[in-house]
């Protein structure tokens, strides 16, 4: 199955007596990069979890094209790539073993080619046989991103991908995201590093205490607009 | 946990052995002539009076049920109070 848009309509998620998301509605098209902004605990990660189908919305619908998560099943999961804050890598395994395991688990063809492509993209070819536990945060982050992109997913979900990266890694990541977007992927990411995404972002949404609002257009950088909106 | 409450209930029951079942024991008719023949012939068993055992058993059953109903009732009341409180807060917030 495939789809060219993701639509959230009135998505609400409760955890007991706490409302993590409240009536979130927006939609992202293929070839777009949308950023979710907001303070810690504003519901960004919850929204990504719901988009990844790992978490179900309490009320409201998420549509992948025209299908719901329940209808999509494994075929839908095959089109989604998620880079969580915890990176989803086995630290005892080497970079190559991590990639190979997930490539096989996803039932991909040309495993060897994809793995070496991913190693090249993450600039870890010379460390391919070192365990992930010996990697720096930046290296892990690059590897984790390539792991999430192994199966060329349509929907790419990234939770704080810029955290802990130095400037050159951030620039490399931005270039990588621009390439992913250019292939027709729907990119949805959360971040606090507004400068890092300023030039590539197509749409931005501000989450505040579970509510989602589009970032108002206006003059100035992304950071300026965000600050204006939050203070208003 | 509910069980702690029940354990407490059991202790209380053991102390006041048989309030509910006392009347039952008093009306006890004369014992059947053959008495009881225990399955195991443990020595000293015949001396064991049956009354407190029966009384305790019934006492525990009654107490457990009563305490449980009481606990539900208390929890219902607590929820009710909390609900009224919240409803008030929502209304106050709405008027603001």
């Amino acid at each position, binding site marked *: 199955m495939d789809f060219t848009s993701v639509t959230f309509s009135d998505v609400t998620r409760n955890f007991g007596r706490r409302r993590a998301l409240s009536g979130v509605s927006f939609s992202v098209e293929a070839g777009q990069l949308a950023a979710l902004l907001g303070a810690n605990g504003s519901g960004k990660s919850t929204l990504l*979890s719901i988009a*990844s*189908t*790992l*978490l*179900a919305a309490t009320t409201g619908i998420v549509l992948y094209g025209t299908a719901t998560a329940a209808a999509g099943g*494994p*075929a839908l*999961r*095959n089109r*989604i790539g*998620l880079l*969580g804050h*915890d*990176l*989803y*890598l*086995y*630290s*005892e*395994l080497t970079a190559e*073993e991590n990639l190979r*395991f*997930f490539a*096989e*688990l*996803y*039932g991909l063809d040309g495993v060897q080619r994809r793995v070496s492509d991913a190693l090249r993209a993450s600039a870890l070819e010379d460390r391919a046989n070192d*365990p992930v536990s010996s990697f720096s945060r930046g290296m892990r982050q690059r590897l984790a991103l390539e792991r999430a992109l192994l199966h060329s997913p349509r929907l790419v979900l990234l939770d704080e991908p810029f955290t802990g990266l130095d400037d050159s890694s951030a620039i490399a990541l931005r270039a990588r995201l621009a390439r992913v977007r250019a292939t027709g992927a729907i990119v949805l990411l959360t971040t606090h590093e507004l400068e890092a995404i300023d030039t590539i972002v197509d749409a931005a949404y501000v989450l505040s205490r579970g509510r989602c609002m589009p970032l108002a257009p206006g003059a100035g950088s992304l950071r300026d607009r965000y600050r204006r909106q939050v203070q208003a | 946990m509910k069980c702690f409450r029940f354990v407490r209930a059991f202790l209380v029951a053991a102390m006041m052995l048989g309030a509910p079942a006392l009347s039952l024991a008093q009306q006890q008719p004369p014992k059947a002539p053959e008495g009881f023949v225990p399955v195991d012939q443990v020595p000293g068993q015949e001396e064991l009076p049956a009354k407190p055992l029966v009384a305790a058993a019934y006492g525990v059953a009654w107490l457990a049920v009563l305490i449980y109903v009481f606990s539900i009732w208390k929890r219902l009341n607590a929820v009710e109070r909390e609900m009224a409180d919240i409803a008030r807060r929502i209304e106050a917030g709405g008027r603001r």
Partner: protein
Amino acid sequence: MTFLATAARVARKDLLVESRSREVVYTSLLFAISCMLVFAFGLVKEGRVVTDATAAILWITIAFAGTLALGRIFDRERQNETLRALLLAPASRAAIYVGKLVGVLTLLLLVEAIVVPLVMVMFGATLFRHPAFMLGILLAGSLGYAAVGTLFAAMLARSRSRAALLPVLLYPITVPVIIGGVRGTAALLQPEADLVVARAWLTMLVAFDAVFITLCLWTFEPAMTE
């Protein structure tokens, strides 16, 4: 086919991780030996082990070590939230459960491979007079224990106070496995091995495995979606 392939991959990955760190096998093995030691203080009288105690020591040791291993294996999947990555894969969830189960079972059998001979030597028990029965009881018992344990450890992985809750949940539910293992082994350990009784226990264990693995396969998918 893909079901088994997925399960095999997940299991192989678990064993590869374990072969790198060897943490689970070492800790649960050492824990198992400590258990045996503690039991010996209580159950060995005048140099002789109390009747039937050997079987009990063997199975309680397996159960305790199994809980430790289960907790650790799923802590590992939680460390970098790799359990979420597994659940996100387009593979059938039941296949992932089976893969984890095979991994857990292999590690448990590995520990048993050392604990069983140790019990034989230290308590002077001739366990393998009827090797087919003994192996069958060990295998069926471990499988049932690991099957239920894997399900509950996986579900508890994202729960608070999981370290305390796992044994509390697991031991009552695996009571038939423990009874079956202990009584079956005890029947084999009698001076004149009671094969009829051992067969009855083996039957019970196999039936338990069949019912509970089926239930686990059904339950895993709905229980893992939040």
